[in-house]
């Protein structure tokens, strides 16, 4: 089985979010970038397939040279090789078009991608990629088993789960549950050393155009201070929630 795992290079969750150029660009100054947490679940599941069932695992990112340390981390976790599509995309459709070209050229059976990236949170790339490649598609996936070309997967629905059957080739939009958080892999020293020698291919974009663009960013209005209520006076809290906040 040939697996492709899509890796987004995103700010660490604890990063302060600021903007520059009159609030039109994300300020990367002092920001630590990591593998998108949702992609990490997918990458670990891909490693499981590789080790238990036999598979090759390629990772791909659509982005500039600054994303390569993140790709090396993913290689250190155990992916076999990496592809970077050399363009800074401006929206999800552009990313999906570039990924679709990689998928079509690479003959992959299974494409795993986090259901969203922790920066722009668009939740559109896996679905667009599946449509552009005409692969089957399961989003919000919390479990997947592959037997030959037959696939059984579980997705989260409102208030429960749905079990689905389908077949390869398939795009998965994954989240926690594809593997559990405790099973996520941390690169060890041997992995880090080996990752330096693994192939990282840089390819030029096919030129997929974006359909949206960011005009400006803004931050939420600063929040007022918390109103503290005495622990012996829960009546006051009820009154505030009823009369002031109007939520009960």
């Amino acid at each position, binding site marked *: 089985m040939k697996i492709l795992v899509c890796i987004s290079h995103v700010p660490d969750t604890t990063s302060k979010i600021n903007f520059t150029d009159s609030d039109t660009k994300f300020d990367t100054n002092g920001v630590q970038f990591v593998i998108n947490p949702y992609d990490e679940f997918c990458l670990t599941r891909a490693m499981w397939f590789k080790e238990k069932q036999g598979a090759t695992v390629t990772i791909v990112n659509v982005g500039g040279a600054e994303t390569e340390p993140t790709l090396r981390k993913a290689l250190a976790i155990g992916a076999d090789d990496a592809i970077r599509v050399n363009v800074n995309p401006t929206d999800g459709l552009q990313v999906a078009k570039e990924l679709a070209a990689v998928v079509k050229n690479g003959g992959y059976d299974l494409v795993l991608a986090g259901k969203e990236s922790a920066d722009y949170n668009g*939740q559109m790339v896996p*679905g667009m990629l599946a*449509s552009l490649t005409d692969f089957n*598609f399961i989003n919000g996936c919390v479990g997947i088993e592959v037997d030959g070309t037959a696939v059984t997967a579980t997705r989260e629905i409102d208030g429960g789960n749905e079990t689905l059957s389908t077949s390869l080739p398939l795009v998965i939009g994954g989240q*926690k549950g594809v593997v559990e958080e405790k099973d996520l892999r941390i690169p060890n020293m041997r992995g880090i050393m080996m990752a330096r020698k693994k192939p990282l291919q840089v390819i030029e974009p096919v030129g997929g155009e974006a359909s949206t663009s960011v005009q400006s960013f803004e931050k939420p209005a600063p929040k007022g201070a918390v*109103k503290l209520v005495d622990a012996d006076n829960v009546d006051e809290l*009820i009154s505030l929630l009823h009369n002031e906040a109007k939520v009960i």
Partner: protein
Amino acid sequence: MSVLVFADSSEGKFKKTALEVVSYGKKVAEQLGTNVVALTINASDSSELYTYGAEKVVSVSNDALKTFNAKQYAAVVTEVAKAQNATVIVVDSSIDGLYVAPIIAVNLDAGCVSNVVDVPSSTSPFTVKRKTFSNKAFSNTIISTEHKVIGVAKNSYGVHENVVAGSTEAFDATVVDSAVKSEKIERITGKVTIADAEIVVSAGRGLKGPENWGMVEELAEVLGAATACSKPVSDLGWRPHSEHVGQTGKPVASNLYIAIGISGAIQHLAGINASKVKVVINTDPEAPFFKAADYGIVGDAFEVVPKLIEKLKAFKAS
């Protein structure tokens, strides 16, 4: 030109988000000087949508669409959008909404923007505001394609009555083949789900053990709320993973979020930022959650929560 809204339903009845997206679609149609068309799939009675501004309802009834299937539903929305000459397509940003929206976008060669929190600030260029960076910022996004797909964030625009004399017409939609088949659906019945809840009562490690969750459930019951928990609690197996709220868990966009014994790690706050009013009960006055909360009680949950349950019962009965 028209605005098409997909009004999702469950067991024939409209979800609150359906009424919200119809309200939203009506406003966008007014901005564009056009009409709004609502699409329903297997809804028993569509007339409720007239109350929220749907002048026309296109009703699709087909047993093959009984269970949600993203590709099939996207094909129906696409077909109806073409038949109604719709250039703006509005869906919700629920689990199924986010599943179907990008497929519709590719079908129509449309720009797609999800988690939208307001009606367009401008229709030329078509500009919408959406949540981004895990609710830490907003981006004002221009959609430059002729067709536009908008996913409205839950509880962001609200439900607005706007009574019109609407009419419903049946539409015989084509059901496309899908190689993804639903085998089994398991729902937790009899409980308010986090996604639907107006109020969420959540607890963390401060509760010391799963045996103490009785009071959390009782408080949730009094308020008609869903129960949730922090990540360490689900990792410890005290509560199911389906209740884990946070960046990699469930996002919450409720009107009221009550956090009991949760310190407020940044990953947790990322998951609840979209909630309107936050209440924190914690023994530690330095807990970071107090900085993110609207109301707080510094106190022992084992003393405060039973009192709160008792007083709320009296309040509800009055």
